[in-house]
Structures are given as C-alpha cells and as structure tokens.
C-alpha cells in the first residue's frame, strides 16, 4: 500500500511566531520554539516531524508564506 510522508521547512528568520499553523495541522506536528529569532519571535518548528503527511495545511494558512512543504510516497 502506498503511503505518504512529509516534512515542512520553516524560514525561521521570517516566521513571526503567530502560531496559526499550529492548530491547522491535523497531526499536531508543529509547535513554537522556546528560542526566538533575531526579531524576537518564537518561530515554528516540527516538534513531531514523523507525523507530517505533507498535507500543506500549515502552509496554506501561514500568513507570512514561510513554510515549504515536502511530500514523498513511501511504499509500505
């Protein structure tokens, strides 16, 4: 059976830590970092990368267009 797995890449320097992506992820992949970027924002990161399916939900709602999404088919 074909399955997909994904990853996101957040441009952490441009992320504003708005956290809008967090609840948008159906698989609870994203959280805000404790660290801040140079603008003082707690940027988003994958706290749970394996759960990512590459569904792009987070990227769709990201107001700053700082999320790239990758997706790969994996055959089980």
């Amino acid at each position, binding site marked *: 059976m074909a*399955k997909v*797995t*994904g*990853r996101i*890449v957040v441009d952490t320097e*441009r992320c*504003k*830590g*708005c*956290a*809008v992506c*967090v*609840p*948008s992820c159906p698989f609870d992949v994203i959280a805000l970092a404790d660290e801040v970027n140079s603008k003082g*924002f707690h940027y988003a990161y994958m706290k749970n*990368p394996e759960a990512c399916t*590459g*569904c*792009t*939900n987070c*990227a*769709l*709602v*990201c*107001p*700053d*267009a*700082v*999320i*790239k*999404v*990758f*997706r*790969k088919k*994996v*055959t*089980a």
Partner: protein
Amino acid sequence: MAEQQITSEDIIQEENLVFDRTSLLTDNVFHYCPGCGHGVVHRVLMEIIEELDVQDKAIGIAPVGCSVLAYNYMDIDMQEAAHGRAPALATGIKRTMPDKYVFTYQGDGDLAAIGTAETIHACNRGENIAIIFINNGIYGMTGGQMAPTTLEKMKSSTTPYGRNIQQMGNPLKITELVAQLPGTCYVTRQVVHTPAGVRKTKRAIRNAFKYQQEERGLSFIEVVSNCNSGWKMSPNQANKWLEENMLPYYPTGDLKKPEDK
C-alpha cells in the same frame, strides 16, 4: 519498516516539494502583524496570477489601510489609490486597457465607508474587474477604530464600550448589497484562517480572473479575516472569535455566480 528508514533529508528534496512560496511574492517581509490574514490573501492572489501566467497583464490597486503597501509584496505592476477610491482607479485602468486583469484589494473601511459610492457604482456599471475585499470588522491601520462592518457590541477604539446599533447602525453587509446589482457577475464570501477556507478563497479568486477574461462583469470577493491587533487578541483567539462571531453574521459562500460558459 521502510518508513523508519526515511529521514528528513530524504524527504526535503527539490523533487518532493509540494508547497513553496510563489515567485510572484517579492522577498520583502510583510509588515503585517503576526497572524494577520492579509498575508494569506496576498499569497493566494499571487499564486493565481502565477498559475494563470498573467503577471504581465495584471494590474493591482492597493487601498489605504494596512495593505497600503501591498505593492511591496506583489511582484506585478501596482497603483496605490486614495482612501476608498480603488474602484475608480481600476475603472480608469480597465477601461483604457481592456485586455488587462485589473483588481482592487481593499479593506472594509476603505471599501464600505469612505469608498461606498465608488464601490456601488463600479459594481453597478459592471466594470470588468475583480474587487478583493478584506473584511476584518475594523480599521486596522489607524489603530482599530469602528468600521461599517464592526459587529454589534464589538469594541473598537471609537466604540470602547461596544458598537451601539442605536447610535451607529447595523454592521453593513455591503456584499449582500452589491450582489443585488446586475453589474456584478460573481459575489462570494470566503475565509482564510483555515486550510479549507484558503483553498476555497483561491478557487474564488481563480473564478474572478476567469470571469474577467470572459468579460462577465465585476467579481466581488469578500474575505472575512482577523485583525488580531485591532481586536486585541492573539491570532488563534482572533480566528476563533471570527468563527464564533463574524461568520454567523457574515456567512461564507457564494451569493451570486454566473452560469458557466
């Protein structure tokens, strides 16, 4: 299992890229507050222009409002209108260059307060343009004053005790009004705080460009969005408030849609 062996490095490869920032957004960082919906609409709009490959035919009009600097982000030719007058500029441009895709991008103060006459008449004439209308229920840029669309009892810097209907009238459903006018061909209300909402908004904007190409008349796309800063909430709180308060009064969906050609 096979999955276990897949590393992030395997996945994060050019060929697996399924979502990237459209090249029609410039590199400038949005000046918007964290979590503001303006950025999403900007992106979606530019994605459509990229997908339709009409960068060289698109002329956008920025309003006066938080999105006044939209031209810093959208990599197309743009003009910055006087407050409320974007539909007039668009009329001037489209009438003299009928083969271009002309759109305005306006806030609720801009479009539904000072610009009411220009909005109504561009819609009534059926100018063959698209109006993208960001309804965040407030004047964001100037510090959160009441807009025509501010909800009953909603607080703003000019209604610190909540909007009083007796004094200020009901929140204006301008979208319902323009849907009445024969000049509009497509009138719809969307959101961008959820993935599904973003997908639909994108579809709506694609429709608008299509109808414009078909010379159907004016497409009017309202996007109900948050102004978390003006509402004095965190972005996610604001989006929740939007669902619970804005959407019941401003329900999403198509108000008017032309037959397919």
